[in-house]
């Protein structure tokens, strides 16, 4: 008698999908639980922001306008590297002249 009843591909796929759904749900639960603790995680950030009256994240520090986008000048939506010449709008894409930076 040959072995005809091996593990079926469809079973493997369904198990894989269930594992996927479970992993996905676990991550969503993770998101929830971290969000629950978000207050304390972000406490020091918000304390500093409150004390210094910060208006922005420091995600982008390469230029003045990126550090404080909220403070940017309407007429100069894009400003440049601290030692680059200001040129709009390519200043946000073109770095400062190398000899000056070094």
């Amino acid at each position: 008698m040959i072995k005809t009843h091996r593990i079926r591909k469809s079973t493997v796929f369904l198990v894989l999908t269930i594992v996927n759904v479970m992993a996905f749900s676990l991550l969503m639960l993770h998101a929830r639980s971290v969000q629950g603790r978000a207050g304390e995680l972000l406490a020091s950030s918000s304390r500093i922001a409150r004390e210094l009256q910060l208006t922005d994240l420091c995600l982008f520090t390469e230029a003045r306008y990126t550090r404080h986008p909220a403070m940017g000048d309407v007429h100069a939506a894009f400003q440049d590297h601290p030692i680059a010449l200001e040129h709009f709008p390519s200043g946000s894409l073109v770095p400062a002249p190398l000899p000056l930076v070094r």
Partner: protein
Amino acid sequence: MNRTIERHKNILEFSLSSLLRRKTKNASLLAIYTLIVFAIASLLFFLSAMKREALLILKDAPDMVVQRMEAGRQDLVPLSYAKEIAALRGVREVKPRLWGYYYDSPSGGNLTVMTAEMPAGFIKIGSGVSRLRRATAADVIVLQSYDNEVPLMLEIEEVLPYESELAAADLVIMSELDFRKLFKFPQGHATDLALTVANPRELSTLAGKIVDKFPDARPILKSEMLRTYDSIFDWRGGMMLVMMIAAVLSFIIFAWDRATGLSAEERKEIGILKSIGWETSDVLLLKFWEGAVISLSAFFFGVIAAYVHVYFFSAPLFQPVLKGWSVLYPQFKLVPAVDTYQLGVLFFLTVAPYTFATIIPCWRAATIDPDAAMRS
């Protein structure tokens, strides 16, 4: 009920066998698809987390910031403005702020200098600065002051906590005295004014009054800051999207080609299935599973990988784009922000079009008469 499940399982079984016949092709298809879902989901996760973070900062931001313009450029505000504005009805508090940027040429970092109540000669620094200058508490940092003669020697009193990186990585906080020394900052002036008002709904009226009184003043409302933030993320996000579009497009063409180009071979197979007793709906179910297996797996793999990428590893793959040419980049751990609606849309866009593109071209072929295979 059981029969329906068994039927699905049986047909799914054959879909998988069918997909496995072109192993490399379908595996690469799955890989590319996963990669695209991964990239888009990473972007969604990243942007929603960032927006959340920014909102949190802006929650405690001043209701209004007043700048002074000189010939269209931002300039220092005389403290006399502060007194007069404070006298306006509805203004609760006016706080002149002293802050500026310091380009640290040895390291190439662009620091943000702010002032706080603290003893002269001491500073607090963000952990990004600490990393950049390899200095921690009790070390002394030398800053080049604007009068070129005397470098400023400042002792680090405290390094701001690591958790605050996203807000404070590039900060150097010093006393007003040191600040004025460092920048030769004129007495009687501030960088800008931070206003707190009694009733936030009167903000725009108040802004109008301020501009009336000082035509060179530029009030920036909190709502404008929020708007700027939205657009800045949309802009950076948009830049990344543009880069992804090429990948997405080529995938669409690839998928389209694969899905719509029903080969003679496939047509013949459908004929055979019909002739051995499969119904039209069975064939369509087969094609449905062929599409769903790939797209469903791609969705889950992509989204799960994106979650891990963004929330466990802080989106390292985005850093080159986000960093720009900055030397000082915050190390942060994002608090997960999952937008169910966006994920739902992503799910729909991933699974539905691909599955339909697999089924639709088979529609006609699936309706051929079962006797066709008898005469091939």
